[in-house]
């Protein structure tokens, strides 16, 4: 049992939770994830770490409410427990002094980008961060990202806050400024990571993405999270979660993310009916 010691609503559909997990916090590194199971009938889902505090022995998790498991998670409050949590899983982000790095966070992907940007900054890189969301209500952690960035660009798809447009537009502009960009890190919805990779491709800049595949165990056992990297099958859980986006078979990822969409809908409909939820 893992106690939730703090909870905060970052925006209507995104929750922040600080969870007591000292052993995991001691080992956690940027880019890693945990697998959680909320309750006895729950499924196992991966969540990339948004932060950790090894002195306090806590992990920070950020999750967007999209289906049964994330709604269940969101229904928990400070003082409640997450039944199971294991980690830290996956290979940590490669952190070196590259020079200038652009970090792109889209939607809930802003959360896992934060510790990576911080680690890159601490390693002596100049960090340019681009964060974006569909609208103003879905933006969070702007100040937190600013604190670890030399430059911060904020976008909203609908223009309800800051610059209007997708994150790929300022990304392209930054690349075209003529200053050397040594590395790009992009985390967010798969479609955003794909387009960030397409944007950086002509510039030949390594573009690290964190793939959000469906998982069960998270330790290399089930193979549910398999992706194709340059035509070779890899497991996101143990070979990733980070890969160079220029080598990812994005269409395969999109397809495999939808394996259980019918079942997920059925499960969520049932959950909503039981909890008197009419949906968004």
């Amino acid at each position: 049992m893992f106690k939730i010691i703090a909870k905060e609503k970052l925006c209507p559909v995104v929750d922040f939770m600080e969870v007591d997990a000292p052993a995991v916090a001691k080992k956690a590194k940027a880019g890693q994830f945990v697998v959680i199971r909320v309750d006895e009938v729950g499924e196992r889902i991966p969540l990339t770490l948004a932060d950790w505090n090894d002195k306090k022995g806590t992990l920070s998790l950020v999750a967007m409410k999209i289906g049964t498991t994330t709604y269940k998670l969101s229904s928990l409050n400070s003082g409640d427990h997450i039944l199971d949590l294991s980690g830290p899983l996956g290979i940590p982000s490669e952190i070196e002094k590259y020079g200038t790095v652009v970090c792109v966070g889209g939607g809930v992907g802003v959360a896992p980008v934060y510790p990576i940007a911080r680690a890159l900054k601490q390693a002596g890189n100049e960090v340019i961060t681009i964060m974006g969301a569909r609208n103003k209500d879905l933006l969070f952690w702007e100040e937190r990202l600013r604190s670890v960035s030399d430059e911060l660009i904020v976008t909203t798809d609908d223009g309800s806050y800051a610059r209007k447009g997708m994150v790929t537009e300022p990304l392209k502009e930054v690349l075209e400024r003529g200053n050397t960009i040594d590395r790009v890190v992009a985390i967010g919805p798969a479609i955003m990571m794909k387009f960030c990779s397409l944007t950086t491709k002509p510039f030949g800049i390594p573009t690290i993405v964190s793939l959000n595949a469906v998982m069960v165990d998270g330790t290399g056992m089930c193979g549910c999270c398999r992706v194709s990297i340059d035509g070779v099958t890899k497991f996101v859980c143990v070979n990733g979660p980070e890969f160079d986006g220029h080598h990812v078979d994005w269409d395969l990822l999109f397809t495999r993310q939808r394996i259980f969409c019918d079942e997920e809908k059925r499960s969520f409909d049932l959950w909503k009916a039981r909890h008197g939820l009419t949906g968004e």
Partner: protein
Amino acid sequence: MEEKTKPKIDLNRVPMPRQEPKVRARNFDEVATGYTLDMALQEAVRCIQCPKHPCISGCPVNVDIPDFIKAVRENNMPEAVRILKSKNALPGICGRVCPQESQCEEACTLGKKKAPIAIGRLERYVADWEREHKSQKAPSAKDPPPKGKKVAVVGSGPAGLTCAADLARMGHQVTMFESSHVAGGVLVYGIPEFRLPKAIVGEEVDFVKSLGVDIRLNSVMGKLATVDELLNSDYKAVFLGTGAGLPMLLNIPGENLNGVFTANEFLTRVNLMKAYLFPEYDTPIKIGKKVAVIGGGNVAMDAARCALRLGADEVYILYRRSKVEMPARREEVENAEEEDIIFKYLVNPKQFIGNDKGWITAVECYEMELGEPDASGRRRPIIKEGSEFTIEVDVAVVALGTTPNPLIPSTTIGLETRKNGTVVADEETGKTVKERVWAGGDVVTGSATVISAMGAGKRAAASIDAYLKGTKS
């Protein structure tokens, strides 16, 4: 003149009652329903209590088989429980999933008459009797309160559970680390409910806990802590029973299509995560109408029979050799055949074919023929050129076998591994080339049986105990 009467040998094995094939093919309840007391007594009486008791040496954990059978036939179940559990902490599991036909029962003197004592069924009866008679529980052999040296056991499958139980009984303080949220390893994620009810695994795990073993779930060793970190803290020895959890793939086109699962994923979803109870349980599985399972081992049988129980209309097993080479236990093949699983021998997939949505629609296969024996001693399957044909399916399960997870070997300094990822360890003692580290079970042998892993756990426990006794605290 009086004639000496030779005791009459009864060659009629009492059959195991089972659910009817048509019924059981649609539920996840246990297939074999177990002996009644009368059946157990009738079977136990057949044992001739021969002086050589070859059955004991046929058992990888050397259960005192004639003695426990004698107790059964005297209807002294508490004594039977005591004898069994003194050597085997997991009798309810072994009585169900051990391949007795190639172990104790193969060695049985009555085996020469083709009617060996049904040792496994009696073992199961005794274990089940104990569970149903909790209050009359036989006092288990004196369990000294653990106050000895600290030992870490990594993995809570058959090897780890047995090693931990034995070490605890020898008085050591055992901490067992399990990566999953439930203890039992392959017993909970792999073997299906209808062959091994999870409640039984849970109870036998509880028994191991009752011996003083501290089980830490959700602990992915290699990530949460390395073996070297364990050794550098206060653990005097480490046993690795991490199994063979990594799935092998065919590496053919279409293998990443939606609807193509590894047997590990398919079985983990169904067994560990209880997808057969979806949507009461949150984890889903795809229910195929026509399902192809590729492989011929026990895992393939389990996957095929799970697919059927989930509601498939047709389930195929595609195996590249012929029936005689098939590695699955004969009893499981017979069960599958009775349930109308369709076996296609001498076929091997060439590719999986999908639709424009990325879902599997068919598997294209080659016909095979058998050539000369290969390294495994089995005749090597060879492709018949031009023999391609397709089978329409909407789910395929790849059950080719598994290799050890590299998580521990890759994070442990000085552990020797073979090309296939297995850890090098002494067969008799389980000792690895690394100081204070032992290993046993599938992580050493590659995928094998529950009982052989238990045997390895037992031998390692003895070796660890001897080592610890020789060291100063």
